[in-house]
């Protein structure tokens, strides 16, 4: 007898790709309902303004327009969105569904036109006349925090969502005894996730039933259902959210948006289905942004390169509102938890601010907070290495965590790993030393190459307390899997996660197949419909394989136990002697004594009269898995090798290597795909992407001609190598790894560029590194720091100050 090889660890082709690559995916845009109308929004052209009047008469008379709705037309049951946060200093605010009195950011919706087509809806928008009275716009963190600046929300005294300060260990003593102190200010730009599919909402309120069905491009169908029910005054049982195939999430589609509520409200008012498809301009203006943050960091170190203490002052420009349900403490709060990275640094002080500005609200975007945290820590490591004349790898070696579990100064528990071995592996695959030598030779010939490294720990699958301490109103820690065997012996796994590119349909099937001795093809995975799947919290923060993978192992274990009991009777054997393999229940050591699994399934489901006494019918088991506190911690290290063109300022990435450890690798191909996709976004963040506002608060990068997402040409080929340190706290040993690619890449690329710039005495402490900046940096050969030249530039339009070493 041959035992089917374990599916876990195999490069199983992604089953979802068949339909997606053939154009057979079903997206919200593909959904139509008879009688469906189309909506478009009138949006604010001002960053900050009072609304004096809205005249909808011409719009209402435009051919094809069915209704024009403003704040005054929304029924009283519709509530503004309020992201609740119980932290002591947190200031909550209301985000209107349609702005009625004041707009606080460009692109904020002030009216909704419903028409027979998107064309006529936009004609209607053109005909809506809104009289705005512009107010001064507070676009930078500095302006917003200036005590003379007026509050953006009347209910608050200061433009701060949140501010807090904590200290662990004895920071002052460490700085007092340090041989070296490095201090840096880093600026990270605003980014947009740019999912290929922008947001889409199709709402169908059924007046006779009093039910609402919403097809929504969301990563979190059940959370979206809660949000819709809450803000529309409906019972959750009367709301169904269907999130079919989704063309990319990356975090922003975890958030409840005013448009979601407005479209559902319009359907309820009109008694007709209404669809809204965000166009790219709207997507860039009104889908949450990410990343914008300033980090002022300081490290104290000894002569032999041991970092004793770190302080971090982190201020994020959160925009005008807080995202539901995550709230505005996300970006800078999460950054502050991760600054010390993979290093053993017991003394750490943080001062964290979430600043209110007249920009689009920031929300989750792949790698929240950790991108700047990693950039800050790795920049300090490189500065120290340069000062102590150590190899960048060596200084990291001297500081990496060596014994596990290790609890950081902010309470993160790194459960397992071998960071030193991973770094060794990177050094070898990157050919680090050979490239360093080659760079030095080429530098003598006037060619500027550099090499950089970035190590980060990736918190995934946040435990409930990890989220609970953030005092969000909803603490989504666990997730659910329902495993059901059908009469033909095939298995259907219904999960609370959502698959939108991560390959979960394949990963979960691999896990279930191994637990049940089936082929991967015998398992179907369903998700994305609150009427079909068990209650779950969706896909974000690299939680799905940990939470739903482990829940699937638990539920499949229950199913296996039931099948074993039944088969024991049928085979006249002891349950302890049975195992599931090759689609059969087999007597251990006696492989010819077996019974096909389908026979056992039929017994359970169709022959209840033959059930042994004490065995319940049915083959359906639902289990939740609660991740360990405060999560599961993968780790990875990236290295980049670049060359700079002094004439154009181009940064060419010559080589890129990732060594990663996410515990048990279910499907190496999928893990590599996640790494590659993350690195692609990291390349964008390091070199290309930036949401730029002008001085009046106008967002000028509202098309893909100006917001530069890397194409396949800009993303370098990369080599990904694995090390497996399974989590001892998660069945299956999984650790989440969806974000690390995006987290390490900017720090690795900036490190490489700075290495190449070393002869010029200039180092970058910002992203993105535009060719303009690189070229200028290379023309300042060890003379004037570029900083002085540009000190008077407004900082919100340009984060590109350089700092002399």
């Amino acid at each position, binding site marked *: 007898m041959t035992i089917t090889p374990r599916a876990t660890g195999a490069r199983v082709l992604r089953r979802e790709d068949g339909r997606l690559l053939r154009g057979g995916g079903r997206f919200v845009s593909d959904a139509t309902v008879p009688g469906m109308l189309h909506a478009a929004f009138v949006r604010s052209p001002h960053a900050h303004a009072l609304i004096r009047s809205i005249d909808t008469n011409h719009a209402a008379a435009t051919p094809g327009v069915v209704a024009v709705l403003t704040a005054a037309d929304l029924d009283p049951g519709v509530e503004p969105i309020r992201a609740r946060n119980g932290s002591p200093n947190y200031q909550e605010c209301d985000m209107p569904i349609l702005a009625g009195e004041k707009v606080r950011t460009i692109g904020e919706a002030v009216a909704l036109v419903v028409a027979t087509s*998107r*064309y006529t809806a*936009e*004609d209607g928008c*053109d005909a809506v006349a809104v009289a705005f009275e512009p107010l001064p716009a507070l676009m930078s963190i500095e302006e917003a925090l200036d005590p003379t600046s007026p509050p953006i929300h009347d209910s608050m005294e200061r433009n701060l969502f949140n501010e807090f300060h904590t200290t662990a260990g004895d920071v002052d003593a460490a700085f007092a005894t340090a041989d070296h102190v490095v201090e840096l200010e880093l600026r990270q730009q605003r980014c947009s996730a740019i999912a290929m599919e922008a947001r889409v909402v199709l709402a169908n309120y059924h007046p006779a039933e009093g039910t609402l069905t919403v097809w929504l491009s969301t990563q979190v169908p059940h959370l979206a259902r809660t949000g819709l029910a809450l803000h529309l005054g409906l019972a959750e049982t009367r709301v169904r959210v269907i999130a079919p195939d989704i063309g990319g999430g990356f975090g922003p589609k975890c958030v409840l948006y005013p448009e979601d509520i407005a479209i559902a409200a319009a359907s309820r008012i009109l008694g007709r289905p209404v669809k809204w498809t965000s*166009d*790219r*301009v709207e997507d860039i203006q009104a889908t949450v942004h990410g990343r914008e943050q300033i980090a002022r960091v300081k490290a104290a170190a000894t002569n032999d390169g041991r970092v004793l203490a770190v302080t971090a002052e982190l201020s994020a420009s959160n925009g005008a509102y807080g995202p539901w349900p995550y709230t505005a403490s996300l970006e800078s709060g999460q950054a502050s938890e991760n600054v010390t990275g993979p290093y053993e640094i017991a003394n750490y002080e943080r001062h964290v601010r979430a600043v209110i500005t007249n920009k689009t609200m920031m929300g989750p975007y792949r790698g929240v907070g950790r991108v700047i945290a990693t950039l800050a820590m790795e920049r300090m490591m490189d500065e120290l290495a340069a000062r102590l004349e150590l190899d960048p790898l060596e200084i990291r070696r001297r500081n990496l965590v060596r014994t596990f579990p290790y609890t950081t100064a902010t309470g993160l528990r790194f459960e397992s790993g071998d960071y030193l071995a991973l770094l060794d592996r990177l050094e070898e695959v990157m050919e680090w030393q050979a490239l360093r030598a080659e760079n030095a030779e080429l530098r003598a010939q006037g060619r500027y190459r550099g090499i950089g490294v970035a190590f980060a720990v990736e918190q995934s699958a946040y435990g409930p307390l990890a989220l609970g301490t953030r005092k969000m109103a909803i603490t989504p820690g666990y997730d659910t899997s329902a495993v059901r065997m059908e009469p033909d012996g095939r298995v259907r796994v219904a999960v609370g996660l959502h698959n939108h590119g991560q390959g979960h349909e394949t990963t979960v099937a691999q896990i279930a197949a191994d637990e049940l001795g089936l082929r991967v093809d015998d398992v179907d995975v369903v998700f994305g419909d609150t009427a079909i799947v068990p209650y779950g919290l969706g896909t974000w923060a690299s939680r799905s394989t940990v939470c739903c993978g482990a829940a699937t192992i638990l539920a499949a274990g229950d199913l296996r136990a039931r099948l074993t009991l039944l088969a024991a009777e049928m085979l006249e054997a002891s349950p302890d002697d049975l195992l599931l393999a090759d689609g059969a229940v087999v007597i251990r050591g006696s492989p010819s004594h077996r019974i096909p699994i389908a026979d056992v399934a039929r017994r359970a489901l169709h022959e209840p009269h033959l059930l042994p006494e004490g065995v319940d019918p049915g083959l359906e088991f639902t289990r939740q898995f609660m991740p360990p506190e405060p999560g599961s911690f993968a780790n990875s290290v990236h290295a980049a090798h670049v060359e700079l063109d002094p*004439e*154009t*300022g*181009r940064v060419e990435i010559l080589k890129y290597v990732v060594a990663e450890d996410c515990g048990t690798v279910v499907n190496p191909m999928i893990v590599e795909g996640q790494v590659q996709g993350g690195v692609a976004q990291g390349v964008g963040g390091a070199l*290309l992407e*930036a949401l*730029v506002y002008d001085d009046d608060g106008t967002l*000028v*990068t509202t*098309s893909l*001609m*100006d917001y*530069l997402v*890397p*194409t396949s*040409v*800009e993303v370098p080929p990369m080599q990904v190598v694995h090390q497996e340190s399974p989590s001892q706290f998660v069945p299956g040993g999984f650790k989440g790894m969806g974000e690390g690619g995006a987290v390490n890449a900017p720090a690795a690329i900036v490190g490489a560029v700075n290495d190449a710039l070393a002869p010029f005495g200039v180092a970058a402490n910002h992203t993105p590194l*535009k*060719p*303009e900046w690189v*070229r*200028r940096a290379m023309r300042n050969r060890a003379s004037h720091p570029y900083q002085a030249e540009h000190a008077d530039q407004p900082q919100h339009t340009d984060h590109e100050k350089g700092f002399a070493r």
Partner: protein
Amino acid sequence: MKPPLFDYHDPRGLEEALDLLARHGDDAKVLAGGQSLVPLLNFRLARPDHIVDLGRVPGLAYIRRRDGVLRIGAMTRQATLEVSPLVASHWPLLTEALSLVAHAQIRNRGTVGGSVAHADPAAELPVAFAALDASFHVRSQRGTRMIGWRDFFVTHLTTSMEPDEVLVEIEVPPVPEGAGHGFEEFSRRHGDFALGGAAALVTLDQNHIQAARIALLAAADTPLRATEAEASLTGQAPTEEAIAEAARIAVIGVEPTGDIHGDTEYRHGLIEAMVRRALKQAGERASEVR
């Protein structure tokens, strides 16, 4: 991102198209490959009352060489011109410029005439035609006229064509015997509009430059020829120093418009570097030919 209402006309012959333009004049836009106009319509930045689509007008797509002169029908797709062996062997500068136009998908739809009539100074084709001393044939009910490239490009997105006129043919004279060519540009991503660029043609006489042409991309509101820099090279050996000096002269007085991707100072230096690279490439190719 849907266009406002317009009347769509799809004439089946040139006379019908000219009749429509004569009647609707200023309120009409001519649609060729749609790679610039359709986005402008979708952003509601262009709001013409009439669209005259040349897609079904026969006889406007051809590539011919007669008496050494290249004639390109205005509706010839950029991709067709890009793979033309005739163009590659006699006007390789054009082939090279075309490979830099946006992306393959855009070149499949975009037309040669459309790019010229759109008159974007950061587009490759107008710059290549400036370097090649091309002329443009335009038609209206009032007749045909031929406009040299210098008179054709007026300013950013503006040509000297009247509202009732349509571009029908691009005429490119033969390139001097033995000329080497170079076309260099730099963009932040593959396929984006370049932040700066240059086209060059160089002919050598023994080891000296007999004639040089330099056209600048994204340097001003139209394609520019750097005539003083061209003259500075005549009779010089094609040394790095001579080329660097010509590039320096080429950008004297040039003030490219800055934006978030690169300010004026950056673009100025970039164009100078592109001129240097294009001249070097052209010079090397010219010596290979000889």
